């Protein structure tokens, strides 16, 4: 298992067939995650990051969403060609997901204890009593105070941070090999966000899991990720180890993102905003999808779609002028 990837996504394509036309949400995404590694998928709304996660998990709303191509190899087996029943057994046991909004992801009319215990009863065939005891252990593990007394509480009786811990507990219940966390801390306050991210990082180390962290927050990514994949208009435009990405981005979009956030440690001048808006997924511009907003755009960018060029060991960038971007810091 050492050198084979835990998850390998190859040329994944997803589209949504709507009345307004076909929205191409994911257009050939490839990435790999190894055991014990954290891959951050960074992008703004509509970049396709959540849809990619849903396609990997097999929870895409279909219709209107359709996977139109590619492979998702999990421990060497293609999830997309697998039967639904087989796939359902993997979900939860081998790969699990943490959602952004714990209040709507948890069942409001079931106690949290029952929801956690259900995992063990369904997947492991445990008795109700046994499963309950495990649920309490699990709640302890994610540091919910007085877990024994709170196991019979309903989700609305917990604070936002505690609910997110329950989500994490649920994802961890069957000790999966891969966790996909979709904006796990976006709805939380900063002090609570720090607690939850710390917990997640600690558990990932302990269980040697792979973690895919989907986020729009450049700050959160810098804190926990090993590698970053930046998405724009359904494509990965840059991949890099976390330090290198922040030090010298190789794609003008990444550069623009980094320049447009204000700093906490000093007062900046005017923010360098990226001009314009992200493209509509029903009408992605030809050539490089970023070309209408790009300060470096030339004629070639409007006609030829840049592939992911290798930039350095473990780094790629989908920009015709990656060299100039890299040098211009």
């Amino acid at each position, binding site marked *: 298992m050492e050198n084979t990837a835990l998850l390998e996504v190859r040329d994944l394509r997803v589209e949504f067939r709507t009345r307004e036309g076909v929205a191409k949400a994911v257009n050939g995404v490839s990435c790999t995650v190894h055991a014990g590694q954290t891959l951050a998928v960074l992008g*703004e709304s509509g970049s396709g990051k959540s849809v990619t996660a849903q396609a990997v998990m097999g929870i895409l709303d279909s219709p209107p969403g359709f996977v139109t191509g590619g492979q998702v190899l999990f421990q060497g087996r293609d999830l997309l060609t697998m039967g639904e029943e087989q796939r359902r057994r993997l979900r939860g046991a081998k790969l699990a997901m943490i959602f952004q909004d714990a209040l709507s992801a948890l069942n409001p009319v079931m106690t949290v204890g029952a929801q956690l215990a259900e995992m063990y009863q369904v997947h492991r065939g445990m008795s109700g009593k046994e499963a309950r005891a495990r649920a309490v252990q699990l709640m302890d593990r994610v540091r919910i105070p007085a877990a024994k007394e709170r196991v019979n509480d309903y989700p609305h009786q917990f604070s936002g941070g505690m609910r997110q811990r329950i989500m994490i507990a649920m994802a961890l219940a069957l000790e999966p090999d891969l966790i996909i966390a979709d904006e796990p801390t976006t709805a939380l306050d900063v002090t609570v966000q720090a607690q939850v991210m710390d917990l997640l990082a600690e558990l990932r180390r302990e269980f040697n899991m792979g973690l895919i962290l989907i986020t729009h927050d450049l*700050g959160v990514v*810098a804190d926990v990720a090993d590698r970053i994949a930046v998405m724009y208009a359904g494509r990965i435009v840059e991949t890099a180890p*976390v330090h290198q990405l922040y030090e010298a981005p190789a794609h003008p979009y990444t550069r623009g*993102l980094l320049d447009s956030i204000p700093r906490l*440690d000093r*007062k900046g001048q005017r923010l360098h905003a990226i001009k314009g808006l992200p493209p509509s997924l029903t009408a992605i511009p030809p050539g490089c999808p970023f070309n209408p907003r790009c300060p470096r755009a030339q004629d070639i960018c409007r006609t030829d779609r840049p592939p992911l060029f290798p930039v350095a060991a473990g780094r790629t960038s989908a920009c015709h002028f990656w060299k100039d971007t890299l040098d211009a810091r």
Partner: protein
Amino acid sequence: MAETADVKEPNVSDVKVSDASTTAEVEAVLDAPVERGEPILQVRNLVKHFPLTQGILLKKQVGAVKAVDGVSFDLYQGETLGIVGESGCGKSTVAKLLMTLETATSGEVFYKGQDITKLSGRALKAVRRNIQMVFQDPYTSLNPRMTVGDIIGEPFEIHPEVAPKGDRRKRVQELLDVVGLNPEYINRYPHQFSGGQRQRIGIARGLALNPEIIICDEPVSALDVSVQAQVVNLMERLQDEFNLSYIFIAHDLSIVRHISDRVGVMYLGKMAEIGTDVQIYDHPTHPYTQALLSAVPVPDPEAREGRERIILTGDVPSPANPPSGCRFRTRCWKAQDKCAEEVPLLAVPEVFAGKQTPAAHESACHFAEEKDVVHAA
């Protein structure tokens, strides 16, 4: 309690209260311009308690959610005052109280020396014209059945003196142009715009009546990073162009530092610390501010390694039943018996009183101590 003259909370006594009594006099006071750098809005001991009741027929008050519990600050003409805090700290309630959308339980809000919590009728209407608001969610704060022209022009229906009927369309198109939208979009509906464009519409509506103060409640937190920067730049440009004073409420500490001249940190209905951006971010003295700043993820892996992280335990207590004494003591690593007994005043801490240091700013902590948590050691 310390009896030194230096230690004192902002008090009504240092407000220059206007002595206008008739409506005409009050209106004259409200229309008078304020010099740059002079206080335009002075808030003193503002309190808002929401009653908690029990029973259906015979409603009995069983307690109160102390959303805002004694907040005082000044807003100077032409400046931006940032207010930060976690959810439930009362920052949005403060905004509503300043807009007189909620009635204060007690306390005063002096706008040009007039206590607006006691005004009504024409005088209140004149105040409202001068204090406008930009809301957080550009999706729910615009009526989906109204065209952009109607949305931005609606304030003129209530304050017809600002733009006569024949001029309104032209004025709306000017406003669209000012916020960077195509004036030809005047007949479009909100759903035809992106999030960033909608927030520009919200800003144009806020500007319509030529206000002096704009209260922005999380104006960019619903927007994507690349669009957020555009809107922040726009707001800074408009401030210079129209000589506006902003109260900028947000939970994103980086954005607040970027836009604010002074920053107030709120915790559970009280102001914990207030000062200039350098004083708060580079020389914080309140443990809550330090914890809050240290928890912000910094988008720079190099910088983060040298930073000290303070991870707070537990959650914010319920504002219906706040801790005695200092409200932060249940999560504070410095808490001692004194903190449970005595409410710390928002004042320059005694240790720094009279000293020429950026740490000498108002901080409501018995054991205030300077600590840089933002910069790498």
